[in-house]
């Protein structure tokens, strides 16, 4: 187990547990301690984690590589001869609160532009721009990206017309750049932007992404072509699990809580279909166990065993298995980040300020 933990450590060692009141550091021993909480399944959990982690962990160096490529793609797409020319004509949104991922991504972009292209994008930050890019790490439910983009589309940068008008008639461009999006959340974001502004938004919104969590499973045909590269349990579960779902106060049961047991058609994410089922059960049951420890009259309805989700969705959670160096997403299963005094659970990843 120590060998596996050491391999995992090599992947996640740059995860930021660098704040003053942190309770632990990411070490091999910490990884083993986390796994041991799964009892007899400890080695299994680590083996399975190691199987998919290289594909879904974005270290800071990897983030820098991806962002460098993205900047070059943007320059090429818009047809600018130099990066400097692209930067003069392109605005990078800085809309999120300082503790969110956007600020940190912009710091990396600033660093790349300064050190590799001798450009300081802040020099022209207040000048009117033709292109507008929204950077973020993960789009899960789509709510954050929708809110930020909609706010900007409603605004009138020229003092006369809503920005949406300029985007629709293509006198300005709007792009979104993500390390990862969830196909279901992305579709929800698209739909709401289309209905609020114009159907053409779907066509003119430029999208750059490095990874897609394929969790759009309402219809059989689409579901059969999704990787389901996330935790999405099957219906055959213990009574306690089914009772938990039945007891959820969530009115929208049109979002499937379970994946069909014959999907994904071909397992490409976990080490085998059997191991997928086993890990999903372990994470789900442990997540419910953790939530059962919550002693409050009005628990947060978004908190689910497999990670935060939309309050109205009658599901076990988003089940995100995608991680970045800077802060774990609360849409990942609770076992990765649950850290509540008295709950006797050590998370794998420490949770930085979520701004609460």
């Amino acid at each position, binding site marked *: 187990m120590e060998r596996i933990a050491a391999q995992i450590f090599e992947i996640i060692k740059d995860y930021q547990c660098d704040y003053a009141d942190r309770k632990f550091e990411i070490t091999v021993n910490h990884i083993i301690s986390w796994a041991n909480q799964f009892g007899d399944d400890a080695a299994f959990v680590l083996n399975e984690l190691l199987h998919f982690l290289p594909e879904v962990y974005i270290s800071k160096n990897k983030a820098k590589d991806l962002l460098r490529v993205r900047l070059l793609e943007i320059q090429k797409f818009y047809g600018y001869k130099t990066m400097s020319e692209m930067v003069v004509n392109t605005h990078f949104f800085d809309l999120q609160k300082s503790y969110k991922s956007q600020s940190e991504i912009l710091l990396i972009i600033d660093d790349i532009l300064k050190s590799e292209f001798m450009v300081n994008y802040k020099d022209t930050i207040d000048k009117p721009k033709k292109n507008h890019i929204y950077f973020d790490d993960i789009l899960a*439910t*789509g709510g954050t990206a929708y809110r930020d983009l909609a706010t900007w589309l409603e605004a009138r940068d020229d003092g006369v017309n809503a920005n949406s008008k300029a985007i629709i008639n293509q006198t300005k461009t709007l792009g979104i750049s993500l390390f990862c999006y969830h196909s*279901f959340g992305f579709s929800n974001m*698209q739909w709401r932007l289309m209905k609020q502004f114009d159907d053409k938004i779907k*066509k003119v919104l430029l999208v750059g992404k490095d990874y897609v969590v394929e969790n759009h499973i*309402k219809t*059989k045909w*689409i579901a059969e072509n999704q990787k389901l590269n996330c935790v999405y349990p099957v219906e055959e579960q213990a009574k306690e699990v089914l009772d938990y779902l039945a007891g959820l106060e969530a009115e929208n049961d049109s979002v499937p809580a379970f994946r069909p047991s014959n999907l994904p058609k071909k397992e490409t994410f976990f080490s085998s279909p059997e191991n997928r089922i086993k890990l999903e059960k372990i994470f789900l049951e442990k997540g419910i166990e953790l939530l059962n420890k919550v002693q409050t009259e009005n628990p947060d309805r*978004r908190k689910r065993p497999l990670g935060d989700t939309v*309050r109205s969705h009658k599901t076990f959670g988003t089940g995100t298995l995608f991680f970045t160096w800077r802060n774990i997403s609360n849409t990942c299963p609770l076992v990765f980040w649950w850290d509540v005094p008295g709950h006797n659970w050590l998370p794998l990843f420490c949770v930085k300020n979520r701004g609460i």
Partner: protein
Amino acid sequence: MKITDRTYNKAEVVVFRSTKAKFGGLSNMAGGYSLRVNDIIIPSAEALYQACRYPLFPSYQQEIIEQNSPMTAKMISRKYLKYTRQDWEVVKYSIMYWVLKVKLSQNFNEFSKVIEATQSKPIVELSNKDKDWAAIEIDKNTLVGKNALGRLLMQLREEYVFNNNSIECVQPLDIFGFLLYGSQIETVCNPAFEFEKDLLFDLDFA
């Protein structure tokens, strides 16, 4: 459902044909009236109607739905006519009315405005040769045809638009094999309802 030919005096009706003309929004070919069924975004009423022909062939449905142009969607559909559901002639009017209800529900402001502007006049789709869905001009003043689409639009006007009765949700049709991409078509709700109830995502925590 069997419907018979009708004769219209051209001067007394609202005629639509081109999507760019005043009443173009009545056409299934009109852009800007996207729909979403079973979480699938569908660019036009025409694409949804055509997709309903092929419930057992999701790949054909996908090819139709992926076309941005409603006319192209219809042309793609023509390639597969021999795979049309066997009871199509029996169910096609019901399916079209369901499609129109979804179009109205999910585009109530824009679509109801166009329908309302027809006042109480007969609505007639004008065509060169289609006497089933539309009517054809037999002389300068007379249009003849079943005008099925126009008549369904009048029914829609009567049931929902005149009463300012925005459709919160549209139930699926109770017909065998009412499938999209291999799954039963579910109840379809209007976006305002979805947004108000935070059915897509929570914005207070976003």
